[in-house]
């Protein structure tokens, strides 16, 4: 099985540069704005798009993504609408990989079989589900693989040599290396460490390794891009949404533009990294 994720990383490898992986929360601050942002991301420089499926209790996320999830939920976003967002996006973009990211409960309640089928049909290519370690692969990872979706796993600084092979088993698409100990968007990544960590993971796998958690600037992105196959940016994008809302918490004319400008800047950083 080859997904859009595999195809995209292979193509970028040929070009000798890293992928920019961007995260937005589905329905933040409302369905139409997030669709408009989504549609603009590839042109702004996003190579892979992660769409957050909002959840009331995002345990691994910092204040930025917590707030964006609650904004989306308050405006009526739900799992069905998130899949609809993917379908709408696919009408005009057949190439950019889409990864759905979130927590297990909304998927479990949707129904695992129905979800993997509907997600694939909508045009999603992979899943990242934070609270499903490899010990629970039977819950979603195996059904997702069977449905033709990549299951992308997080490796963290606490994942030691002994555990790494277990984390990499059944992982496909790419490996998401969490560069800091902690929740999303709070600490700055340790840039010196990244090259060594990526190398350590690559000793165990041929999959591309993307690095994220705490990447906010083009400069950081550039440094990471020189040492990894992908750079993930999330909280900074979500904060660009927050910073352009009006007093009622609604999107303004600036919202989409602010996000796409930021992504454009970071994309320049990624592309400026030394060819590998």
């Amino acid at each position: 099985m080859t997904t859009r994720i595999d195809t995209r990383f292979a193509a970028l490898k040929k070009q000798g540069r890293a992928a920019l992986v961007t995260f937005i929360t589905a329905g933040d601050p409302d369905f139409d704005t997030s669709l408009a942002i989504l549609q603009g991301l590839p042109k702004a420089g996003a190579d892979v798009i992660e769409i957050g499926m909002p959840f009331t209790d995002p345990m691994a996320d910092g204040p930025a993504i917590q707030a964006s999830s609650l904004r989306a939920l308050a405006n009526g976003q739900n799992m069905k609408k998130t899949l609809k967002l993917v379908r709408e996006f696919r009408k005009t973009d057949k190439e950019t990989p889409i990864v759905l990211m979130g927590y297990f409960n909304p998927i479990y309640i949707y129904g695992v079989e129905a979800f993997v089928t509907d997600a694939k049909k909508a045009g999603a290519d992979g899943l990242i589900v934070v609270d499903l370690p490899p010990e629970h692969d039977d819950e979603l990872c195996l059904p997702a693989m069977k449905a033709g979706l990549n299951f992308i796993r997080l490796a963290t600084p606490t994942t030691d040599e002994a555990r790494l092979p277990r984390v990499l088993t059944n992982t496909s698409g790419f490996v998401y290396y969490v560069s800091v100990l902690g929740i999303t968007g709070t600490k700055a990544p340790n840039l010196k460490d990244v090259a060594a960590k990526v190398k350590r993971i690559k000793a165990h796998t041929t999959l591309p390794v993307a690095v994220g958690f705490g990447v906010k600037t083009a400069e950081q992105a550039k440094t990471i891009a020189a040492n990894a196959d992908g750079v993930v940016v999330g909280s900074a994008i979500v904060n660009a949404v927050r910073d352009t809302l009006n007093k009622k918490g609604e999107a303004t004319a600036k919202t989409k533009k602010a996000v796409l400008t930021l992504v454009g800047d970071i994309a320049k950083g990624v592309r400026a990294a030394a060819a590998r």
Partner: protein
Amino acid sequence: MNVNAPNSYRTGPDERGFYGLHGGRFVAETLMPLVLELEQAYRDAKADPAFQSELDSFLEHYVGRPSPLYFAERLTEHLGGAKIYMKRDELNHTGAHKINNVMGQILLARRMGKKRIIAETGAGQHGVATATACARFGLECIIYMGEVDIARQQPNVFRMKLLGAQVVPALSGSRTLKDALNEALRDWVANVEDTFYCIGTVAGPHPYPEMVRDFQSVIGKEAKAQMLKREGRLPDSLVAAIGGGSNAMGLFHPFLDDKDVKIIGVEAAGSGLKSGRHAASITGGKPGVLHGNRTYLLMDDDGQITEAHSISAGLDYPGIGPEHSWLHDMGRVEYVSATDKEALAAFQLCCKLEGIIPALEPSHALAEVMKRAPKLPKDHLMVMNMCGRGDKDIFTVAEHLGVKL
């Protein structure tokens, strides 16, 4: 009784941490190595007689165990039926059953060389117990507490501060116990090296539900021995209140294989089950995944967790320990509920008849005792778990009774 009843109800969980459908380890990868390390450390401690003897010594001399099994004579007379005994865990140091578990976990943390302790708290009882044990052993202590709970449990907040703990408000979501748990988990993810997470109830990723149950089982073991000594036989029924379910599990677990003992757990029905404003996860929820385990949860059709409501901050949680969920599925324990109003009435009755000011949590168990006891014969022996004292709740009660303090 369920026709598929197992040979024993006391052998769970399995090696992956499951009790039937429930339990497990639904945590982020960052925490997984820590949870595995904790499990190993707990297995080692459990097998070490020196650990148990140290714990027993602290339970006796510091906590004040065993707690009495008290015959509530006037309440029994008033209700005119079953003979009611109270397991007096409100007499423990810090005023609730929470310290039983905390002593065990803090001794384990010391064994593991952890210097920084974090905990979540709802009513503040687990927070006070944790702050107490940390003060006793000179450990750094950070307590996460929902902003709403901080407002309604001021005396406990001040107690924790006096004991040297830092109380950090959880400002996200419903700003109650579930959010305090989220914040504690987020802290743990960010401070994995030196931090021990002392969970206050029989929930969370495996091995917490099992470990907390084991530490709280001292309640049921004592009650069993005390009842045999007093009455020469086992009780006919047990009644305990359930938020996460640690006091109930502690009382119930040693009796699970005594098939003639009827066991009843009481959830908080808040303003009433039909109102939608309640905390009855089994009666009003369905199985889902939150805080590291699968269990009955309050949620909407999209799998979004909904807010729990109860007059009692300690029961104000949208989930329940996974072993309770399993015992419900198996039909071994009957889960019922009591409303705020019923709990308040039981609270007042207990004050007047027994000279005991109960916490609002066990007042829910008392409310069920009031419904059940009058219909039972006088030789029916009933044990209710008086798991906490009510000093912390007098402001809440005054407000509900329209009294200005």
